[in-house]
């Protein structure tokens, strides 16, 4: 999806459209940008995780978690500040896939929304610690600072009606710049 970074902030409609295409790209096995550029996740893991994240924050008039870049946020941090959670993600995603195949005979990512909800709800009994971890990371990525990749173009802040960029203070911080952490 060729979005010009120099073009400045997208309008909400442009953003939703761009996000939806990004989400579609994930669903068919390409990470946004170029294929295979996840830092930690495999393509299969990314598809499963995207399905979970998008049940935690589904799309409505505003983008879903994965459409806003939450996968980028989590993946990036899994080799940085979330290194200690690598094992939890590996085994949690495996558990989720196993549940999905056992109950519906298919990967979570290709199930219809209703069945995805069922699996994610089931996680709260089967592996609650993992669901809570993904829930926290998803909400943090989506509602946190855009520079970490999970709140692309401050979409959640606009959704909440917060002026963006804020009227008070200097705008010396490039929101899209990666974090040193």
């Amino acid at each position, binding site marked *: 999806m060729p979005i010009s970074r120099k073009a400045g902030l997208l309008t909400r409609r442009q953003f939703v459209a761009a996000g939806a295409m990004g989400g579609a790209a994930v669903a068919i096995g390409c990470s946004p940008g170029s294929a295979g550029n996840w830092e930690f996740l495999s393509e299969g893991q990314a598809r499963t995780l995207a399905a979970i994240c998008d049940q*935690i924050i589904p799309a409505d008039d505003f983008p879903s978690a994965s459409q806003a870049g939450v996968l980028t946020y989590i993946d990036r941090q899994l080799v940085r500040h979330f290194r200690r959670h690598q094992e939890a993600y590996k085994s949690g995603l495996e558990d989720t896939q196993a549940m999905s195949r056992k109950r519906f005979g298919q990967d979570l990512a290709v199930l219809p929304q209703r069945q995805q909800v069922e699996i994610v709800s089931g996680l709260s009994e089967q592996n609650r610690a993992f669901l809570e971890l993904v829930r926290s990371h998803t909400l943090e990525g989506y509602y946190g600072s855009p520079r970490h990749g999970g709140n692309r173009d401050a979409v*959640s802040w606009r959704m909440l*009606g917060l002026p963006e960029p804020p009227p*008070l203070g200097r705008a010396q911080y490039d929101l899209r710049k990666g974090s040193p952490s």
Partner: protein
Amino acid sequence: MKRVNAVVVGAGAAGGIVAKELAVAGLSVVLLERGKWYTANDCRKDDLRNQRTTVLGNAFGPEDDGNPRVWVDPRGAAHIVLPSEGSYQNDAACVGGGTLSYGAQAWRFLPQDFRMRSTYGAPEGSSLEDWPISYDDLEPFYEKAEYEIGISGDYSGTPFHGPRKRPLPMPPLPPGREFSILEPAAKRLGLHPFHIPMARNSVPYNGRGPCMRCRWCVGFACEVDAKNGSQNTVIPIALNTGNCELRTECMASEILTDDRGRARGVSYFDAKGRFQEQLSDLVVVSGCATESARLLLNSKSRLFPDGLGNRHDQVGRHLQGHHYTGAVGYFDFETYDDVGPGATIAITDYNHGTPGLCGGGMLANEFIRLPIHTIDRLPAKTPRWGLGHKQAMREWHKRSIVIMGPTQQIPTAEGRVTLDPTVRDKWGLPVVRLSGNVHPHTFEIGEVQARRAEAWLREAGAIDTSLMSYKAEMVSAGQHQAGTCRMGNDPRISVVDRNCRVHDVDNLFVIDSSVHVTNGGFNPVLTIMAIAYFASDALVRNWKGTGFRS
């Protein structure tokens, strides 16, 4: 390395003041700080990496790598914990300490806060005590802190404060929307709301401009340098005397003593990891409650086999912070005005005087919130995830008010810092081991305070509320940590005397929140600062060139 008069360990709220007072009095001072010196340009406005929201780590130290602690849970299981985790009980590690990034509420304790035991008696299982000093002893030093650091606010709305000789040096910031909603409601309830005292410029002061009222306040360095901490007030004065050298990224490892049991300096690891010794005539420990205790306990020698000041097993005990409770109110109109610092209005009606309760606490509205703060502060019926959660974020982020406050904690001897026998930090030093629990009466007070916050919100028109009241199963310390080197007249049950001098080492001082006997129902920083001025004053008066008057 040249011998100096004084080494001060820790450039936070207290250490910065001590360094300045000694340097101005003509003593040569080395101020050691384990962290870095950040400036307004390091604000960065990162919602996920600051001192309050530490999802991606602490912005102002310490780093997660190489700085572990051990936390012993109430069932006795030990966990290795990182600085960005709550059970680590972190305070910032940088020049300015917590005062670089704090919310900057600058409260005086009340006169009763210094005599809790004689006011209430000690609840069973507690170590509630009176201070050896009174509010009146500290009053001139509270005033000095208010004027030198720079405090804005207005106490005139309430009779519930200690006697004071001068008003605050700056007026309060203009009231925000939450103030205008909450003030009439409090008055209808017969309470006495007023403007929170803040270490924040409301008008130009001390050569810096006023607050620009942005959203990134508590947890962040102020990007216009309008928040007043030791890093932009007393430390520059100390350095300008020419008598004080600040050495950053220097981790103190031990207080050195001589054959007669007197302190002779401090050993430390410098910014390049080299081991150094700085000899001095006196040593001041200002590392905050957990780390000051650790340094004393790590300073073992033939004369002090259990660590310095620890002859009676008191170092590290009575660790306390604050038990925060309150309520969230949900409104059918917008309460959010996007104007910082947000926290503007408080009541101190409930700090003392409730039958059956040993004290209480101040209640105030919360600092301006970032979206990340709302995700777990939604109405109780909100689903934890899914479309319902997303919709609730939209519905309530700008239509909710949080009122909460620090419940005065009832200390216990078992809430404590010891050294972990096996875990070491990146310098190879034994780390802090935290154990114990909060005294149950604290939770009873906290529950009542939460109900009071809820009643205030209901009176203000909240259509729904949720209580923030809980029983934490861990010792409480955090940014308000205090009480590991108690001040007292009896050496058997305290570590330092009323002037913060360690009982059995006459040239060693602990000057920071460690000496607090109790921690008030208020943010403790102004009291930490007042004690630093008070203790420095006594130290300088007794100083005679190379030693102390006897």
